[in-house]
C-alpha cells in the first residue's frame, strides 16, 4: 500500500497536469477565436514573426 505522502504527491501531479491541459486548450481556443475574428491581422502577425525569426537566424 503506498504511503499517504506519495498518494498526496501523485494527486497533486495529476491535478497540475489537468490544469496545464485545460490552460493549453483554453489558449488554443482563444487563438482560434482571435484568428476567426481578425484573419488578416493574424496572417500579418504570423508572417511578421516568420520574418523576424528568419532575420535573427539567417542575417545575424
Amino acid at each position, binding site marked *: 500500500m503506498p504511503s499517504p505522502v506519495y498518494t498526496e504527491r501523485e494527486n497533486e501531479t495529476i491535478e497540475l497536469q489537468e490544469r496545464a491541459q485545460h490552460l493549453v486548450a483554453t489558449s488554443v481556443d482563444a487563438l*482560434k477565436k482571435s484568428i476567426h475574428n481578425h484573419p*488578416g491581422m493574424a496572417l500579418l502577425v504570423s508572417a511578421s514573426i516568420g520574418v523576424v525569426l528568419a532575420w535573427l537566424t539567417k542575417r545575424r
Partner: protein
Amino acid sequence: MYVNGRQNIDEVLARMEVVRGRLDRDAQATKQSVQNMTDWRYIVRKNPLATVAIAAVAGFLLVPKKRQPAPALTSADIERLAKEHTVIVAKEASASPGLVGTVAAIAGAALTRAATNFLATKVSEFSKFSEREEVDHA
C-alpha cells in the same frame, strides 16, 4: 400509374416544378461554394492554425540568406598568383531563380492545386446531380 391523359400531364408538370426548384437550390449552393472558395477570409477561418503556420513559413522564406563577403586579396597575393600563373577565371555557376522566382513558383503551385480541387469538386457535384436526375426520371 396512367389513369387518364389529364392526370398524367399534371404529374409531369408537378415533377418538372420540383426539378426546377431543386436546380435553383443547387445553383445557389454552387454560387455560395464558389464565393467561399475564392474568399481568403473563409479559408483562413476554416483552417486557422494551418494558414497561420503557412504565413509564418512564407515570412521566414521571404528573407534571403546573408551573402558571404568575398575574400579580400592583397597586392602581394595578386603578385604571387600572377607569378605562379595560377589565376583561373571560372565561369559563375548557373544563377538561382531568386526570391521573385521562388515566390512565383510557390504561388503557381498553390493556384494549380486550388484549381484542380475546384474542378474535382464541380465534377463530383455534377455527377451526383446527374445520378439524381436519372433516379427522378426512372
